[in-house]
């Protein structure tokens, strides 16, 4: 199970950095601030995944002079992921398409996450709320654009949110841990679909596409 979880962190890092790379190319080509926020979000997410993955395989303990406590590495990884999900949600808040309807939710919902429990739980709760917000905004965006890729992303974020929720609700049950890992895996694969489409698109396909 732990091996699977570590593998998932590295797959997550690969997916996140791939999306960040395409978004960064978008920033260079179009100077779009949306793409900049998307790139920043996935760089944070990817770094968070890498930290958690390295901590999982015990890489930090084996490097002399880098004996940092496991709890610190885990917290740093979780913190970076939370920042990444915040940027993802923040991108939607700044986008005027639907922000005025759902924007206040981003401010209100995390209040419930601040409880006298551990920092770890607070970060997980915040990540859950940010992903949930992303799901709502992306689903609303799909209702406007009917772009099938948007539906993929909404579904992927939904699976990630469900995975986070299961990990928050029942952190110690083995079967549910497996279930949440599978949910997060499917969610990450769904997030990767637009990158695949982007990579394998023939240049000529878009010459006559409507803008």
């Amino acid at each position: 199970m732990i091996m699977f979880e570590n593998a998932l962190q590295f797959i997550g890092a690969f997916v996140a950095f791939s999306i960040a790379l395409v978004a960064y190319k978008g920033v260079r080509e179009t100077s779009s601030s949306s793409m900049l926020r998307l790139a920043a979000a996935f760089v944070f997410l990817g770094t968070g995944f890498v930290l958690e993955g390295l901590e999982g395989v015990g890489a930090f303990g084996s490097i002399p002079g880098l004996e940092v406590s496991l709890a610190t590495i885990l917290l740093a990884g979780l913190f970076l992921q939370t920042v990444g999900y915040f940027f993802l949600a923040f991108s939607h808040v700044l986008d005027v398409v639907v922000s005025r309807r759902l924007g206040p939710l981003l401010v209100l919902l995390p209040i419930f996450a601040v409880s006298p429990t551990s920092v770890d739980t607070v970060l997980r709760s915040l990540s859950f709320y940010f992903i949930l917000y992303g799901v709502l905004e992306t689903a609303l965006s799909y209702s406007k654009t009917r772009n099938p890729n948007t539906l993929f992303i909404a579904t992927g974020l939904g699976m990630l949110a469900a995975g986070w929720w299961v990990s928050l609700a029942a952190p110690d049950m083995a079967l549910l841990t497996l279930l949440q890992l599978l949910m997060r895996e499917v969610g990450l694969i769904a997030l990767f679909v637009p990158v695949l489409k982007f990579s394998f698109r023939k240049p000529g396909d878009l010459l006559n596409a409507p803008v």
Partner: protein
Amino acid sequence: MPQYRTQGKIIADILTTARDMNQDGQGVGITTLLRRGNVSYTRMTKLIVDLVGAGLLLEETLEKNSKYRISAKGMMFLQQYVQFEDFAQSYGLRL
């Protein structure tokens, strides 16, 4: 709620008009660009100067009338813009 267009979207709209409305191959006039681009005359003339300067539009002047055609570089920009617009839209965002 009104949907505000970004500068990139306005440029893409102008280039699309220059590409799609150039049916006789002689280019399109500023009136067509204004009508389809939906920006003011002052802003359009400034944008056209910038686009011609950047090599995205080609300008041809015949008897005091300027006509505009999309260049190969403009086609390339438009192609990339559409790609990234679709990519951003996938994540529920606008470019």
